[in-house]
């Protein structure tokens, strides 16, 4: 079991929680909880070890597109990077759909 933690500065607050995805082969659960810390913290738990570099890239790409003060918890069951990106975007949509976009 790998546990990976990443942290990035953030400015926008969110008011909602999100829980998307499922427990199942090739999928993952994503939980987003609002925080007041002005950072995005991503905690990943995965049974598939050895993919730190891939996780880092996927998470960095997400954070570059979504600026939210939140704790993002990921329970991974061997999802591909494509599935991870879809689930993260889905969760972000839930928590940010009352933020005004410019």
């Amino acid at each position, binding site marked *: 079991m790998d546990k990976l933690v990443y942290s990035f500065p953030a400015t926008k607050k969110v008011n909602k929680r999100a829980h*998307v995805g*499922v427990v199942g*082969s*090739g*999928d993952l659960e994503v939980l987003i909880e609002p925080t007041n810390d002005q950072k995005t913290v991503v905690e990943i738990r995965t049974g*598939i070890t050895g993919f730190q570099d891939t996780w880092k890239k996927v998470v960095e790409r997400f954070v570059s597109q979504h600026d939210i003060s939140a704790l993002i918890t990921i329970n991974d069951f061997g999802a591909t990077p*494509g*599935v991870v990106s*879809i689930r993260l975007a889905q969760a972000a949509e839930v928590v940010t759909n009352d933020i005004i976009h410019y």
Partner: protein
Amino acid sequence: MEIKVHDIVEFASIEKLTDHTSLPPWAVNSPEAANYGVVRRMATSKDIVPIGLRGKTREQRAGTFIHQQEILRVITPESLINQIDEHEQQIYYSSLRKIREEFLKLNLTWGPTGSVGFEMATSHKVTSTNSDIDISIYIKDIDHHLLVEVNQFIDKLEFRIDAQVEIPQLGAFLLNDYVKHSESGFILRTPFGPQLCNVQDERIRLKVNV
């Protein structure tokens, strides 16, 4: 020869595989990878079959390709149902037997995949006591009530069953994802990658994120 995702293909030796990159060292020496590969979901040119090799551990997976000509035998998940009773000693036996009985009543085509399917097809021991049981269910069209019923049945079994639903020409989704999120969005795995979809008027539609 029709070959589909999750089928297991047998080949004479690992030298028969077609690839432009080298295989990881574990794969070259692994008895599990020496003669068998599992068909992956990927669009390829004609006659080239994308397969995955597996080793002893969960991390040991390698994607490669095989030319159809080099395939000696195709073992489908559906064909493994006839061998369930040969695996009476295994921890997954009672669950597979119950699924077989129920799915026969529901007239469903299905088969074991993942580590259980690989083990049954190749006799290489790759399951462990904490392996879940992966199965594929093959349907032609979405039948919402049937899928909900199947999910309820699977949920009641003592073992964790990971059911994937395959629809020809379209792709596959996880049954529990579909049942929980058919309206809000579930992931359809296609040969061109995963897509977020939902169901409207009993049809699968792409859900485009704004």
